[in-house]
Each structure stands twice: as C-alpha cells, then as structure tokens.
C-alpha cells in the first residue's frame, strides 16, 4: 500500500521531487504545519531571513545566479503582504520564483480571521499565475505546475496559497507526483517563425548603421553565447539595457555600454542615428527610449522576444519575431555561417568610425564627466572603478536603487551574464543586501559585493543578522553621500535645488558600530588615498562580512542623463554641457 502523508509532508516531498534545494522563508501561524514538515526532513535547506521582503529578494537573486527557480515560504496576512514587494520586483524583471504562502484555515477564509489576507487577490497584478490548494491531494500537481510556469516561456513569479487545514498532520492521503505537466491553455513558443527570421536576415544585410540592442532576456534565456557569436560574425556595435549587462563582455571592443536615461553618450547617439536596430530580449522600457515619438527616426526595428505582449507595446516593431532568444539567435548565426553575404562592409567601417568618434568625445572612460578624486573628496564613480580593480572584475555585484546603482552599471565591466543583480524594472530600494545573500547561497565560493547607499541599505538592514547566522562573507560597499542621491539630483536639475525630504541631516547611524553590533567588520573610509588599501584589506577577509562605509562627494550627479521628452540623442553629458 502506498505511503500516506499529510499535506505538509506532501508539500516538502513535492518540492524535493521538483528539484528544490533551498527555501528562503519566515514562519508564522498558518505555515506552522509546513514548518514542522521542514523540521522532519533533511533534503531541503531552509534559510531564516529577518523580514519576508528579504526572503523574496534572496530567492530572486538565487535564481538570477543559478538560473533555477527561487523558492519562498511565508505565512498568511502580514507574511504574505511583506513578500509582495519582492514578488513585484521579480515580476518586473521576469525572474522565475515560487512563493508559497500559508493561508488561514479554509472555513475561516472570508471571515476577516486573524492574519487573513486575500493573497491571491493582493498578488494578482504582480504574478505570472497563482494557485490555491484546496486539498492535500492537489498539492503535488500544483507545485509541479507552479515551477513549470515560473521557469518556462517568459519566466516570472508564481504564488501558491495553502490554507492551514490543507497541511494539517492528521489528514493523510496518498502522494502522487505528476509524471508530466501539460496545460492546454499554456504552450510557450519553442522557436521563432522561419519567415520572420528570413525577413530579419534581409534587413540585417541591408543595414548601413546597425545596432545590436541586448536586454535581460538574453540573460534569462541563456543566450549569451549565441548573442556574442552574432555580434562577432556581424561586427555590429552592441548596446545593452541595465538588465542585459554582462551578455556581451564589458570590455569587448564592440560593447558601447548601456543605453537609455543614464546610458553612455556613444550608445545613445548610435541608437538615434541607427538605420537598423536588432533588439534581442529587451522591452523598450521608458527608461531606455526617452520620448517614443522621437525614438530612433531612421531605424528599421527587428524585435526578438519570447513574450508577444512586449512586441509593439511601446515602440512599433517592423519585423517582430516571437521566440526563445537562444534558438532565434542560433538560427541567425547559422545563416551567416552558411553564407559569405554580409552587410556593406565599407558602410559598417564608416559607422564604426562614427561610433569611435562619439566615444572619444564623451565616453565614460575616454572623457570623464567628473573631477578626479582627491583627499577627502572621493567620487562615487571612482569607488566603483576601484571595486572593479580590487575584485579583478570577477565579483558578483548586487545593487540597490539610485545613483550608486547607475554608477555600478556604468563603471563596473560585467564580463559574464548573471554577474550583475539589480532591481531594474521595479527599482526596489532594499534589494541589494538580501540579493547578495541569495547570490552567496547560490555560489558559496564567489566574491559577492553589494553596492548600496545609506538610503537603500536601511530598507533591509535587518538582514545583517541573517548574514551572521549563516556566515555570509559579503562585502558591502556603502556609497554614502548622506542623502537620497538620485532624488537630490532631480531636485537639483528640476526643482532649483529644493531638497524636499531627501537629506538625513545628522540622523544616520554609525555604520561601523552597526556592523559590529551584528558581529561583522565595519570600516569607515573618508580619504581617497586610503580607499584602495582598505578595500583590499576588506576583500582579503574572505570569511567575514565587511561593511565599508565610504564617504563620497554629496554633490555628484549621474551623467549622461537624457533630457525628458527628448530623443535618444538629447542628453546632459555633464553638469554644464548638453547635446
């Protein structure tokens, strides 16, 4: 006779059979049967965070580093609602994640019971799909479907809500894991339309001023190798979105850097003047297009994306291709391998000369937009450059949201995909530290650095305690400008310097003591001349979390910055010059 199991044990067994190795979570009343089942098994490791938001970001980062689905477990009510920010973060960046939430007992649903929230309803706009388990028998199939949905097609978070009685120890049923998952209403596309790919090839062959525009889809779709080959075989200039950093090596000569609001001068100029934009897995987000009415006026746009809704949503695609990027890019590479035909090489040479000229004029590294650091004036840009130097460009970098995020994206050369983790779509302050934890759990040998600011770090600072519990030797780079830097930059540029609620005055904690209170190492760095030595010292402590509180120039702005309502080429290149 088949073994009879409770809903709680069935859940854990189903998770194991799905391949789950780690859960990030926080217990509470409605989830206690599940937690008891966790206690009684050894296959899946549970990581106890300090706030449910931390669990979701950690699972999200775990997924970004490994490519697997991240798993979160929270209780009902506040546990569930605290997870919503992290779910929305994952949703906006298409990160595969399954969030299991305890729910009040079935007979109490709708009764405004203690710690009751309609989690299915609350999370609905920020999930790929959601399920409620009504009986223990349903759990294995729901779990199998949840993970299948999370990782296939355009990935995203899936919520599984389980009322407490469904996991109760005294109700035991037969465990049966589905052999195969089939959903008649869900069939993700397996390859691009051959006719459309042919059209794209034709457009590519006619291009004289092409740009390869690469997004996060190339990371999520594991298409980095194919995209690199395509860039090489065509010798096209490449730009990437914030989410696409690392797909093409940062130091590759074809890499023009990030595009968009804080993109490089050369990338934005190239986009504006391009006659062909080959977009691979990006979604023409408003932060990358500036005003769509003035967007890249001469360009034929080829848009490859796995999600048909991303195509012609913001910018009309002339040649849309719906399909997985690895397969579509591979097909394109194969076409060019089989033929001698190439776009007009003379035209391409001229185009490259133009791109190099743009880079020489206002490139981030060829023509710095800020003064050099000196004495007690440490420039935040130089902090990132130093981080790159000290880590040999090899660290996994997480970031929070704001100026430091943009500086990290601009000045750290990411040479591989899944090396750069940030909340690109939702822009969630507080992401950095728990994400760094998730990254370190995903790769215990990696050097993981969290680039943050004194504003963002305080949004999830409680996770320093989790780092103590699990001995996570993270390196925190606190780019401390004593203000909400990006808010302040906008107030400088658009509100005549009226710093409405963006300054902390004398209220910031002593971060060194704070780190020490959690059992970590704290360092305060105030002089440019000591930055390299101290940073090296910190990274040499491979078994300790080191919190580097680095005092930077509070007046620095992020440049280039596109001018609102303008075209791609309309930018401030530094505080006084604009295009």
């Amino acid at each position, binding site marked *: 006779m088949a073994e009879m199991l409770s809903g709680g044990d069935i859940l854990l067994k189903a998770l194991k059979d799905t391949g789950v190795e780690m859960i990030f979570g926080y217990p509470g009343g409605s989830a206690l049967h599940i937690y008891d089942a966790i206690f009684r098994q050894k296959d899946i490791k549970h990581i106890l965070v300090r706030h449910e938001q931390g669990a979701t970001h950690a699972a999200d980062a775990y997924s970004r580093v490994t490519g697997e689905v991240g798993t979160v477990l929270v209780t009902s009510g506040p546990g569930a609602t605290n997870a919503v920010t992290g779910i929305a973060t994952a949703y906006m960046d298409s990160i595969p994640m399954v969030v299991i939430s305890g729910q009040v007992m079935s007979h109490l649903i709708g009764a405004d019971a203690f710690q009751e929230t309609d989690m299915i*309803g609350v999370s609905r706009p920020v999930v790929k799909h959601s399920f409620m388990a009504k009986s223990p028998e349903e759990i294995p199939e729901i779990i199998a479907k949840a993970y299948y949905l999370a990782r296939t097609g355009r990935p995203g978070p899936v919520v599984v809500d389980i009322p407490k009685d469904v996991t109760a120890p005294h109700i035991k049923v037969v465990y049966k894991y589905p052999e195969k998952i089939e959903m008649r209403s869900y069939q993700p596309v397996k390859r691009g339309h051959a006719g459309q790919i042919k059209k794209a090839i034709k457009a590519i062959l006619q291009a004289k001023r092409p740009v390869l525009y690469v997004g996060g889809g190339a990371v999520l779709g594991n298409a980095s190798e194919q995209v690199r080959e395509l860039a090489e075989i065509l010798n096209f200039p490449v730009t990437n979105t914030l989410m696409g950093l690392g797909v093409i090596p940062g130091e590759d000569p074809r890499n023009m850097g990030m595009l968009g609001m804080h993109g490089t001068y050369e990338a934005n100029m190239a986009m504006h003047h391009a006659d062909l934009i080959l977009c691979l897995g990006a979604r023409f987000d408003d932060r990358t297009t500036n005003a769509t009415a003035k967007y890249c006026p001469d360009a034929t746009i080829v848009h490859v994306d796995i999600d048909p809704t991303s195509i012609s949503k913001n910018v009309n695609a002339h040649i849309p291709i719906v399909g997985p990027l690895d397969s579509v890019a591979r097909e394109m590479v194969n076409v060019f391998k089989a033929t001698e035909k190439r776009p007009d090489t003379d035209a391409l040479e001229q185009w490259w000369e133009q791109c190099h000229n743009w880079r020489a004029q206002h490139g981030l590294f060829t023509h710095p937009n800020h003064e050099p650091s000196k004495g007690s004036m440490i420039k935040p840009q130089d902090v990132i450059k130093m981080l790159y130097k000290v880590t040999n460009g090899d660290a996994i970098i997480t970031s929070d949201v704001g100026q430091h995020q943009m500086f990290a994206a601009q000045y750290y050369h990411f040479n591989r995909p899944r090396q750069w983790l940030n909340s690109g779509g939702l822009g969630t302050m507080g992401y950095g530290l728990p994400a760094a934890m998730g990254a370190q759990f995903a790769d215990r040998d990696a050097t993981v650095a969290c680039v943050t600011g004194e504003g963002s770090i305080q949004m999830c600072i409680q996770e320093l305690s989790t780092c103590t519990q699990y001995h996570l030797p993270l390196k925190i780079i606190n780019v401390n400008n004593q203000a909400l830097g990006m808010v302040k930059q906008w107030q400088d540029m658009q509100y005549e310097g009226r710093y409405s609620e963006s300054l902390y005055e004398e209220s910031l904690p002593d971060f060194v003591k704070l780190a020490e209170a959690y059992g970590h190492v704290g360092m305060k760095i105030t002089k440019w001349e000591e930055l390299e030595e101290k940073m090296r010292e910190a990274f040499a402590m491979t078994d300790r979390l080191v919190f580097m509180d680095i005092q930077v120039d509070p007046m620095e702005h992020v440049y280039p910055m596109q001018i609102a309502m303008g075209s791609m080429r309309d930018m401030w290149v530094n505080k006084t010059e604009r295009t």
Partner: protein
Amino acid sequence: MTIEQKRIISVLMENAPGGLSRVVGLFSQRGYNIDSLNVAPTNDTSLSRLTLTTRCDDLVIEQVTKQLNKLIDVVKVQDITEGSHIERELMMIKVRTRGDERSEVKRCADIFRGQIIDVGPNYYTVLVEGDAAKLDAFIEALAEMRVLEVVRSGVCGIARSDKALTL
C-alpha cells in the same frame, strides 16, 4: 492615427476559480475599458466562454488580445468584430404603466418584437433581445415613460463561419 471602434472579444478559458478576476484585473491594471462582459460555461463545462465589449483603436486592441492570451487560464482569444459576426443582447425593462400608458408600452414592445413577461397593476416588464443598438433604441422609444429598472445581459457574439472558437 487609428480611430476608436467598438470591439467584441470572445475568450475561451478554463472554468477555474479566479479566472474571471484575472481578466477583469487585466483591464483595470492596463487602463482598458470594459463596456460589457458576460461569462458562462460552454457545452464542455471545463471551459467558460467570456464575451466582452470595449472601445479602442487598432494598437490597443492588439495589446488587449495579446495580454488576454498571455493569461495562463486563457485557451483562445478572438476579436470577432474583425470579421462578419452576429451579436445579441438580452434586456429586461420594467416600466411604470397606468391608463393609456399600458397600450402605448404594449405597442412599442410589439414594434421591437419584445414580450411582456411580467405584469402588475402599475407596471409591465418587457423582454427585448437584439444587438446593443436596438436595445438602446427601445429605451429611447420609452423616453416619455417612467422606466423603473433596466437589466441587460451584455453582448454575446459569435462569428459567421464554420470556424469555431474551440480547443
């Protein structure tokens, strides 16, 4: 510039809990309007057929149908206004009727091929079916009367061809 037009969208979806809220949520979340909506199981009770009407231009309708298709529970989506189609709506209208009004309402109902399906000393309830414009016209025809209550089913539609919106 494309112009806004009335669209009738048919959606075949899993008859599963939460499905309807996902459709309705999608419309409010993305800023699309719903003019009418109805939903009921089909002959295959594991599937529901949903018909909704909206006014939008070509660009928006493309997004609406794509977004609906993206919902996991949705099996198929069709904008039936793209081709030849039939639409029907059902309306029950309760009108205050005293004295001469009774014959006047009866006459109007006959003209619109409606039926009086309930009657009281002071009122008639008339059932009318047809396309949305016909029902609007019937309400207009009773403009002089005191309409007590109107209930409309929302538009149901089906394409005029042997192609069907099925699995």
